[in-house]
Each structure stands twice: as structure tokens, then as C-alpha cells.
């Protein structure tokens, strides 16, 4: 039965808005149950996805494993690490409900989301960019004025394109085509239905790397929006948040973070995504004294 309810927890349920969330003691919950439950993405390459051997792996999962190790040390006992697949619709409710202790995915830290949950320090920095076909010769984002640009429904990317249209950045206005998910956008791009697909840079890099004809694509443009990714944590549990942040800083400082970054995003990684200067500075600035 427990298994079923855990399996069930894998998806859905995005409405929980516990406005008067009570303070919870996540560390105590983990200690009592002997299980550390982590929500992770599937299909968000390379943050969390199933590889060719059908194993659930990724950058965020590697960091989750570090948290697991640190938790075992802190609590002084062996803990079971349980990963549950979450998606953009389920990730916040699952934490708010207490079904998972942390979501290590690829969620942008925004103020509206702070109403429901808390966030860790920023562990990844990206922003909206455009994926285009190389042979079309688009050099800058502006070149796509009057062209069809795809984006996923409800994403920050969709909002970014709307804003650029409203501000007159695109002249004539770009035609926005909204898809239910990234895979459809990728198909539309490949088949010439749209000229560009707007997504988070790191996501686009993942989509590109997964495609058979990866070399036909190129990611263009400066970051059109600012998307700092953070881990989703239960609301009003500063002990747990402090613990996670401390571990993250330790990883920043002792090089474990960069090791994982290189493993997944390095030149020979799964999704090459060179760290920008802003990103590097952000990591440095967040490395509070230990």
C-alpha cells in the first residue's frame, strides 16, 4: 500500500496552497522514518532523466546523493534514499504536502512560488534562449522578428516572448506558437513549422544534445530572462534550509560542485553548457564563510 501511494505521488496534484503552513521539522521527519524522499525530474536532461540503461540519473540527482550522505552523517544512522519523479505541475504541491522532503530538479526561484514553499540557494543559472536551425543563418534574437517562435504553455519562456513583443523588441512582432511540451516544440522546429523554439538555455542544450541531428541546431541569443534554479524546500523550516544551504556551500567551496558540473555540463559532458561569468560570480558570492 505504501508503495502504491508513493508511486502515486510520482505525478500530479498541483493545487495545495497551504497559506497557513505550520512549521515542520523535516530533519526529525527524516530521522523518524529513516527515509530521505527526494523529488527529481524525468526528461529534464541533464538535471534528471532516464539514461539509455533506464537508470534515473542527472546533475540534480548527484547533488541529492551528496545531501543524503551528509544527512546520514548528521543523524548518525543509515537512511534510505527514495527518489520520486516530479514534473513542473507536481513539484511544488508535493513539497507543500510533505510527500517529498526536497525537490532537486530545475525549478526557477520566483517570489510568487515563495508563498507556498521555500527555496535553497541558487544552484544553477540560466535564462530563456532560442534554439534555431543552423542553416537558417539567424545570428541574433532580433533576426526572428515576424517569424514563428514556439514555447511551452505557461513557461517563463512563453512570457518572455510576449514581453519582447509588447516592448517592440521584435518588429514586426514574432508569432508565438504555444505547445503543451518541449518535445512537440522540438518536432515543430525540426520540421520547419516554427523558426525558433524558446526555452531555458540549459534545457535547450539538453534537447539539442538528445537529437540525432544535434549539429544542425544552434542556441542563439543572450539570456532573455533571468532564471536562477534552486531546490524546493518545505515552507517555514529554517533548520532544514540551513542544513541544505550549508551542504551546498561546502560543495561550492571544496570543488565537488564543479566536479558534477563538469561531469554533466562540461565540454565532454552529457549536455555541454559552458558556465557564464555571471554564473561563476554567483557561485562565488553565495559561498558564505563556513
Amino acid at each position, binding site marked *: 500500500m505504501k508503495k502504491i501511494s508513493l508511486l502515486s505521488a510520482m*505525478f*500530479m496534484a498541483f493545487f495545495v496552497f497551504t497559506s497557513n503552513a505550520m512549521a515542520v521539522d523535516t530533519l526529525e521527519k527524516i530521522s523518524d522514518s529513516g527515509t530521505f524522499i527526494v523529488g527529481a525530474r524525468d526528461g529534464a536532461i541533464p538535471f534528471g532523466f532516464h539514461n539509455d540503461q533506464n537508470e534515473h540519473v542527472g546533475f540534480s540527482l548527484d547533488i541529492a546523493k551528496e545531501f543524503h550522505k551528509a544527512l546520514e552523517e548528521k543523524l548518525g544512522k543509515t537512511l534510505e534514499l527514495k527518489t520520486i519523479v516530479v514534473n513542473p505541475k507536481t513539484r511544488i504541491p508535493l513539497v507543500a504536502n510533505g510527500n517529498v522532503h526536497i525537490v532537486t530538479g530545475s525549478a526557477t526561484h520566483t517570489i510568487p512560488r515563495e508563498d507556498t514553499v521555500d527555496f535553497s540557494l541558487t544552484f544553477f543559472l540560466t535564462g530563456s534562449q532560442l534554439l534555431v536551425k543552423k542553416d537558417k543563418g539567424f545570428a541574433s534574437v532580433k533576426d526572428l522578428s515576424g517569424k514563428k517562435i514556439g514555447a511551452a504553455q505557461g513557461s517563463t519562456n512563453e512570457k518572455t516572448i510576449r514581453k519582447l513583443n509588447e516592448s517592440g523588441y521584435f518588429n514586426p512582432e514574432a508569432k508565438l506558437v504555444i505547445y503543451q511540451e518541449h518535445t512537440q516544440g522540438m518536432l515543430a522546429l525540426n520540421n520547419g513549422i516554427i523558426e525558433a523554439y524558446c526555452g531555458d538555455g540549459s534545457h535547450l542544450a539538453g534537447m539539442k544534445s538528445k*537529437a540525432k541531428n544535434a549539429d544542425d541546431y544552434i542556441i542563439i541569443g543572450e539570456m532573455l530572462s533571468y532564471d536562477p534554479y534552486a531546490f524546493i524546500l518545505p515552507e517555514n523550516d529554517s533548520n532544514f534550509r540551513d542544513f541544505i544551504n550549508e551542504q551546498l556551500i561546502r560543495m561550492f567551496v571544496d570543488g565537488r560542485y564543479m566536479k558534477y558540473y563538469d561531469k554533466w555540463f562540461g565540454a565532454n559532458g552529457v549536455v555541454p553548457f559552458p558556465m557564464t561569468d555571471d554564473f561563476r560570480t554567483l557561485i562565488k558570492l553565495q559561498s558564505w564563510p563556513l
Partner: protein
Amino acid sequence: MSFEWQVITNNFSFLMGGLLTTFQLAIIAISGGLALGILVGMARLSSIKPIYYPATLFVNLMRTQPLILVIFWFYFLIPIVLGNPIDAFTSAAIAFIIFEASYFAEIIRAGIQSISKGQVEAAYSTGFTYWQAMRYFIIPQALKNMLPSLITQGVVVFQDTSLAYVIGLREFLRSANVVDAREMRSVELYLFVGFVYFMICFSMSRICKRMELKKGAA
């Protein structure tokens, strides 16, 4: 452009996994929908108003809705009612059972109505209660009479399962979509998906037609 059919053979087991999910969902939807449909169909013929009116309202309401919307609706509603998130398959299965029940109910109702009053009375006169008469006598006959319509509806349900795509269920169509996003062979993949659906549905409707002919001849 040239066709590259290897994309099908290379990803065959993955695609068949999707087809298996489609079959599982279809079987649950058909059997569950039929079971619930029998109850609703009986309720639609009930002389007891508190039973008749809700059943009629349910059937007529469901039949005004696009299935895709019903799938979304249950996807949002069930977690609120249960207090727990549920997976896409369960959510889709519940939506299908409830939605298809309204269609099966109308078929069953017609089936029950096709049985002559005399037969029903004969059943009662042998001492059967309402439930016994329904269980051993009327429903089996109604099902038999309505078999072609039921199969036709079953084929419709089978096709309908492709809509579970929208809530992320990795059924046949989505698995083709996933492969497509990687391999970029839309034409081959959708032709293949279409072909498989066609072969299954076409042979079912052939069987159905033969049955109808047989029934006409008898």
C-alpha cells in the same frame, strides 16, 4: 525525402511498450465502463425517480463534454478528493471509466428495451427477483443483442485512449512522439502508429460487421 524505416525497428520494443499501455488502458476502460454502464443503463430505465434522474443527468451531461476536457478535469479533481497525488494512468483510467460508462449505458438501455415485456414477465413469474431477472436473464440477453454496438464502442474507446497523451501518459502515441523528438522521423513514425491503429480497429469493425450480418440472417 527518403524513408528510413529502421527508426521503427530500432525503437520497436519501446514503441510496443507504449502499445501495451494503450491496451491496458483500453481494457480497463472498456470493462470498467461497461460495468458502470450496465448499472447506469438500468438506472436510466428505473421507475424510481431518485435513481432515474441522477442517471439521466449524468449520461446527458457526460455526452456534452469533450473527452479531453473530462480527462483534464479528473486529473485536477481526483487529487483534491483523495488528498493524494495520483499517477497519470490511474487518473486516465478513472476518467475513461466514467466517461465511457455514459456511452455504454445508452447501448445497454437500448439492449434492455429490446427485450420483450413478455420475456421479462416470464422471468418474474418463475419467482425471480428484479436483480435475479436482470442478472441471469435480461442483462445477458441485452449484451448479446447489443454485441455489435458494444464492439463498435469498444473500438471507439480503444482509439480514445490516445487522448491520455495530454496528461503525459506514455501510451502508444506518446511513445512515438518521444522517439520522434529524438530521431526526427515524423513521417515514418506517425504512418506506423496510424497503420497499427488502423489494423486493429479495422479488423475489429470487420468482425463486428460479420456479426451484424449473421444476426440479420438468423
